């Protein structure tokens, strides 16, 4: 088991926002974490990535990556792990891209920081861009010259180029148009197949998660109320909250649609 989370608790002052008993992620697996606002899904991701203390939160419990405990590591040690072992992409691609630098410069800098030579970095960046169906020419652009979809793909490319073991994606497509989202999901699907991507996919959209994830964990009020393989959870939901979530999603061509 590559990533093991046990008894994870996250607090803001006296208020507990996350209380997870267990969560596992194996190599080549995509785990979806689904919940609404206040469910604690994003904080869970930040806690695993080691970003929680920086937001003023207190974290307790155990998060083990390849057997190594991540909770309680120093900033220095975490910086080493971030990028190389854990890569994160956010809802707003702008969060991952520094607006003052050309996209390519950031990319190369990140790669070289983790040990690649200049030539090697350039090559890996090019390969990564092509793997997300973007022309390497786009590396010359500034972030504001890219569309939302392109910027998000660059963020994914960076994560791939760094050969991170785990990709944590926090609502990566929520801010994008639905046709662009479809393209991004296709890219992620390809990466999942080709590179055995292990990923944590956080979303409020159960339908998106259903398509891209192998297993899903449903969160409500900081706790995981149901978990299991996607197909099983969709077809035979056990927890009432899961059923409520499934019932609330509007379907195309459903009986409730208006007639002529």
């Amino acid at each position, binding site marked *: 088991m590559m990533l093991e989370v046990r008894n994870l608790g996250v607090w*803001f*002052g006296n208020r507990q*926002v996350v209380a997870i008993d267990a969560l596992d992620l194996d190599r080549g697996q995509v785990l979806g974490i689904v919940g609404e606002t206040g469910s604690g899904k994003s*904080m869970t991701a930040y806690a695993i990535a080691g970003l929680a203390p920086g*937001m*003023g939160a207190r974290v307790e419990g155990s998060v083990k990556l390849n057997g190594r405990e991540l909770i309680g590591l120093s900033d220095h040690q975490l910086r080493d792990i971030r990028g190389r072992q854990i890569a994160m992409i956010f809802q707003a691609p702008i969060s991952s891209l520094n607006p003052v630098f050309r996209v390519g410069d950031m990319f190369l800098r990140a790669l070289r920081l983790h040990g690649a030579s200049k030539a090697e970095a350039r090559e890996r960046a090019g390969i990564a861009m092509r793997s997300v169906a973007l022309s390497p020419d786009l590396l010359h652009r500034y972030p504001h010259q890219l569309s939302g979809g392109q910027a998000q793909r660059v963020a994914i490319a960076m994560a791939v180029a760094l050969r991170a073991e785990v990709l944590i994606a926090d609502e990566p497509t929520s801010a994008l148009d639905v046709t662009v989202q479809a393209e991004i999901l296709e890219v992620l699907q390809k990466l999942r197949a080709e590179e055995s991507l292990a990923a944590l996919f956080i979303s409020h959209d159960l339908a998106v998660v259903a398509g891209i994830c192998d297993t899903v964990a449903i969160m409500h009020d900081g706790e995981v109320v149901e978990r299991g393989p996607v197909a099983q959870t969709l077809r035979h939901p056990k927890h009432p909250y899961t059923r409520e979530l499934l019932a609330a999603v509007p379907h195309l061509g459903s009986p409730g649609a208006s007639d002529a």
Partner: protein
Amino acid sequence: MTTVGIARIAPSRGFVRRNPTLVAGIGLLVLILLVALLAPWLAPDPADAGTATHPFRVLADPSSSHPFGTDLVGRDLLTRVMYGARISLRIVVEVLLIAGLVGIPLGLMAGYFGGHVDQVIMRITDVFLAFPALLLSLAIAFVLTPSVSNMTIAIAVTWWPWYTRLVRGEAASIATRPYIESCRTLGVSPIRIVLRHVLPNSVTPVLVQMSMDAGGIMLTAASISFLGLGAQDPTPEWGLIVSQGAQYFSTQWWFVTFAGLAILLTAIAFNLIGDGVRELLDPRRVITR
């Protein structure tokens, strides 16, 4: 979801512990305020704050009957310094009031209506802001003939543009908010929108700024009086007293010193309050419940 928010104002002990700066500033100011309000009863020689002179005890050393000594016409300095508090505090309040009453409405109109209204108001504001504030107030005070009231007007004239600029920024950003647009589509009158919606939502930064400006206003007034263009004798304004005592500094040190200390303490009080208010409203403070 992260929860970062402003500290809630809770009663007594918790509040004092969490906002030491603000509490210290308020405490000091309350003290000065009490001195100012109760001066007619607390001061040893109230007449000395006015036209009384005592030729036989000119420049007397500090003693039990005159703890701060006497000035160049024999007036009790403790009395004059106490009465000076009344004047300084009054000037601060009046300047803030005038600058606010002029600056805030202009800023609201410029920000909410935009277009030509904005251009005209901001260009006028720019003209005032182009002058170094102190020089401009000195010039105005000079033209209006020096007195406490004229000095107050002179300072207020140089102060209002800052509030206009501040409010304009807030008002302009609020004018595009959906709740304002809803009012427009509902047909609510523009005046009501500005007074009932834009004003309450844009006024907080101004109030914060005012708390930080109070110290500066007091110092400006003292400076103008020191230069002879503000309060005139026998008005016991602190800056004027310092100016009168300057030449006697080496021999009769008390003349300048106590008035100067009064200025210092009051400025500190205002600055502590200003800093405290800013800290209180800092959005990065985390709640610990």
